[in-house]
């Protein structure tokens, strides 16, 4: 790609092109994988700018407006199957649908009312602990060497922020560990399964320590029995 092509993709990612150039950018994206890769990188940056812009909460009625518009659209444009060409179904989208089916098969969506109440008490305490770390002025992000997400550290307090962590299967739980030296120390349990799991790390996380997560039997164990699914870089 020449300089002009790079600039075209940047302008496209920012939605800063006039209609004729937008069309040129689309043509380029159709034929160039390099251009698509660059667009992906640039749109992650622009989406981050969107996050930084977020101000007041949307009005409460907007949610229903969005859903009503979608439902009305479905009633006027049918059937879905015939207007969508099968070859357009993304491979990873199909994998995600399979993951959803597997999640149902594992019974992950069944929760009793009483456990929900217990969950909400524990969740409140967790949220308060996590918010204190995330909001502190010296909070910094530490990379994960394994797993998707970030370890946020403030002093010796730490919070794991994990994305797309599959829910722990029935009879299992995720266990957090602090590895400072040779022996991992238990640092809390969580079930995963959220779009974003925010998990405060129990105990202190000193300089040079790593935070790990393993899948363990429900109730947790005293020493890890499986390979970590999440591992931070040294703090």
């Amino acid at each position, binding site marked *: 790609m020449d300089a002009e092509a790079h600039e075209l993709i940047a302008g496209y990612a920012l939605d800063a092109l006039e209609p004729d150039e937008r069309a040129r950018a689309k043509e380029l994206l159709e034929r160039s994988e390099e251009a698509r890769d660059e667009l992906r990188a640039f749109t992650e940056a622009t989406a981050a700018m969107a996050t*930084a812009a977020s101000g007041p909460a949307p009005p409460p009625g907007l949610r229903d407006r969005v859903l009503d518009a979608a439902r009305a659209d479905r009633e006027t444009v049918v059937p879905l199957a015939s207007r969508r060409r099968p070859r357009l179904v993304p491979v990873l989208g199909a994998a995600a649908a399979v*993951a959803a089916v597997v999640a149902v098969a594992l019974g992950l969506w069944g929760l009793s009312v009483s456990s929900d109440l217990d969950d909400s008490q524990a969740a409140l305490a967790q949220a308060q602990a996590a918010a204190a770390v995330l909001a502190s002025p010296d909070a910094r992000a530490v990379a994960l060497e394994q797993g998707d997400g970030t370890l946020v550290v403030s002093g010796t307090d730490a919070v794991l922020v994990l994305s797309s962590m599959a829910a722990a299967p029935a009879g299992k739980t995720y266990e957090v560990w602090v590895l400072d030296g040779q022996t991992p120390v238990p640092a809390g349990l969580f079930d995963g399964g959220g779009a*974003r799991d925010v998990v405060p790390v129990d105990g202190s996380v000193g300089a040079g320590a790593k935070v790990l997560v393993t899948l363990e039997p429900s109730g947790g164990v005293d020493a890890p029995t499986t390979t970590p699914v999440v591992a931070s870089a040294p703090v």
Partner: protein
Amino acid sequence: MREDAWALRRHRHLSDEALIALVARGDDTALAELYDRIGRVAYGIALRILRDERLAEDAVQEGFLAVWRSAATFRAERAKASTWVVTLVHRRAVDIVRREERRRAEPLEPVTGQDAPDPAGSAEDEAWLGFERERVLTALAALPDAQRESLELAYYGGYSQSELAEMLGVPIGTIKSRMFAGLARLRALLDETDTETAWTPRLTS
């Protein structure tokens, strides 16, 4: 309680990408869950550009309708699902602001009501959004002034490259190269402070 409250609880456990797959099959409760996750950021960027609550709502509604209609064409290897949704809403907001002559006469000002409490958001989400916001603002502040100005006027102001060239009195080629250099630099700065990688289908069992 809403009739689809139970369905929403079920979807809580799915990744954004899995929700898009369900939306592609016409599942409106999956669209509702996506709105609950991304609606706040989507509305925030739309309001930043349009500076009018009614128009911002229009942009969010139209953006999510685009998600609803084109979910089957979403490709996870091209963008994270949340990024894709924000991109569609941003594009609608920019299209609307360019239609509205009114905006062009107004000075670009920061949105008021920043950091207003969100009764629907959890404390964790609020704290995380605050952390992310700081991280991005820090990265933006580290850019050369001319690059930051180009990015902000384009992405937050909805100005096109040719409009900016005229407004700032510089050649359009300069604007284009500032945008490219600024975006590349911003991306590198964000990468330094974040390791969140692309979503990959993964089952830990």
